[in-house]
């Protein structure tokens, strides 16, 4: 029963992602219907703690966390082709903001600050590394996570004498509402960026960076600012998510898995589509939570097999598959009439 509620809310999340994609298209037919449905979905999502058992919104919170990481990651790396492995770093900065300041300032201020500090870190890192191409950029962002982890570890042991920290906890429903708010803010931001000329600039950078520069695009500027905006959301997500975990240390806060998963989830869902990464992370996160606790070995095996299958047979991910099936149905219909 509670699983059914989780699934309904998952569908609502995917719908929101699909709606953003649809709003970006020129096709404006039936928009009134789709907008109406958005309201319904938002009501379903925002009232979940009122009708669903605690387990259901804890679960959806975790799904939302992966959603925020994946959709932000794809917002920058999708069009530009710069594969960043820094999400864990930005998420971790949020976590530590919470751990250090959580008891002194109000919850929303902590979350905002976590986002801002990640934003600043991303500006610095971006200015230093976004001129690196391909593998070098990937390796640098990967190294960044390791660097911060070890620096922090050294600092904690040298100056505080303990490796970890306790975090001020917050209620499960509060964490859920804040995470949902972050996700919706992210969708709005993604919509604005994609619809504005920055969206076009990002795409042109991914297609041919040199030509983009000669067309009057400040390529470094555009890359750094969008990279930092996506880090802002990752930082906020980290700041609120920690309040569920109560105890953290540098290893758990800067877990590299949180850098890899967004990449995998986005590919799994299909990066050519805006709702692809949404679909990918919702399904992936659900399966991870379900299978990891109940059948850890089966999970890891299934994880590997599915990933390989998707990369080999579904270059455009699940969203691409959906498109293909829809095209086939449309063709059948045409053949019949």
């Amino acid at each position, binding site marked *: 029963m509670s699983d059914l509620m989780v699934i309904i809310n998952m569908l609502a999340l995917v719908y929101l992602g699909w709606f953003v994609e649809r709003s970006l298209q020129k096709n404006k037919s039936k928009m009134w219907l789709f907008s109406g449905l958005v309201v319904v979905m938002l009501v379903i999502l925002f009232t979940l703690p009122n009708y669903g058992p605690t387990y259901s919104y804890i679960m959806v919170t975790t799904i939302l966390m992966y959603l925020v990481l994946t959709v932000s990651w794809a917002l920058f790396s999708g069009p530009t082709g710069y594969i960043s492995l820094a999400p864990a770093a930005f998420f971790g900065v949020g976590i530590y903001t919470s751990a250090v300041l959580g008891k002194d300032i109000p919850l929303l201020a902590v979350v905002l600050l976590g986002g801002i500090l990640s934003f600043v870190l991303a500006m610095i890192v971006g200015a230093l590394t976004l001129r690196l191409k391909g593998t070098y950029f990937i390796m640098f962002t990967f190294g960044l996570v390791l660097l911060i982890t070890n620096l922090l570890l050294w600092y904690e042991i040298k100056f505080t004498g303990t490796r970890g920290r306790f975090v001020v906890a917050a209620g499960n429903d509060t964490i859920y509402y804040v995470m949902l708010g972050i996700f919706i803010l992210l969708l709005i931001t993604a919509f604005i960026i994609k619809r504005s000329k920055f969206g076009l600039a990002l795409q042109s950078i991914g297609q041919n960076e040199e030509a983009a520069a000669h*067309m009057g695009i400040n390529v470094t500027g555009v890359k750094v600012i969008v990279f930092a905006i996506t880090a802002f959301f990752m930082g906020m997500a980290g700041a609120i998510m920690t309040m569920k975990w109560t105890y953290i240390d540098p290893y758990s806060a800067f877990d590299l898995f949180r850098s890899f998963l967004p990449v995998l989830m986005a590919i799994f869902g299909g990066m050519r589509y805006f709702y692809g990464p949404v679909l990918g992370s919702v399904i992936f996160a659900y399966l991870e939570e379900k299978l990891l606790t109940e059948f850890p070995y089966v999970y890891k095996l299934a994880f590997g097999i599915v990933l390989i299958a998707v990369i080999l047979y579904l270059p455009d991910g699940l969203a691409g598959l959906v498109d293909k099936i829809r095209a086939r149905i449309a063709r059948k219909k045409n053949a019949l009439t």
Partner: protein
Amino acid sequence: MHLLEGKGVSIHFGGLAAVSDVDFYVDEGEIVGLIGPNGAGKTTLFNLISAALEPKPGEILLKGKRINGLKPYQICRLGIARTFQTVKIFGSLPAIENVRIGSLFGPLNRLSTMEATKEAIELLEFVGLSDVASAPAKDLTLSSQKRLEVARALATRPALLLLDEIMAGLNQTELLEAMELVKKIQKRGVTVVMIEHVMKAIMGICDRIIVLHHGKKIGDGTPQEVANSKTVIEVYLGEASDAGD
């Protein structure tokens, strides 16, 4: 005052002096041809003017103002646009979007989205690509891709347009069309510098020709003067038969 002027422009790649101590100028309204054998340094000179590379040493002036050390996007907004010898289009974007990017980001005074779109449509028609406006740029033929680059460059509203071998590999009809196009660009009030190996085109439409050889300038004058220059005939026209690719 010259529209564009270079003083002692040079650049070395390791031991190779790709462009060495070149003085040149371009006046408003001209079509200037830039010729020379393969590897002479023509494309490198374009890279220096458009700030893909920085001259060391040397100085480049646009309307009397030094533009060394600026970034490519700033050079573009100051009014210098270019095309690329090996096409550099935004392949998966529709042709029209390629041009719209130029009009959205290139002009110094920003256009509204509506104006940018209108201008992109007009420019696609200008280069004869209206039919394929919504096709992905990578699906266009090479000669269409070259014209798309011209439209995209014009969309940035340049005072000076640098064309790098837009006529390479064209058949006779296409060649005549391309020559006509360059003439039309001049009539729009845009000054043109064109690199070309196709002698017929160069001699036919250029007001003046600059000749490079091993990174050095060895000739500069009207098509007649250059065609009659002994040095030019020796080092370039003599080799032209094997440089016609």
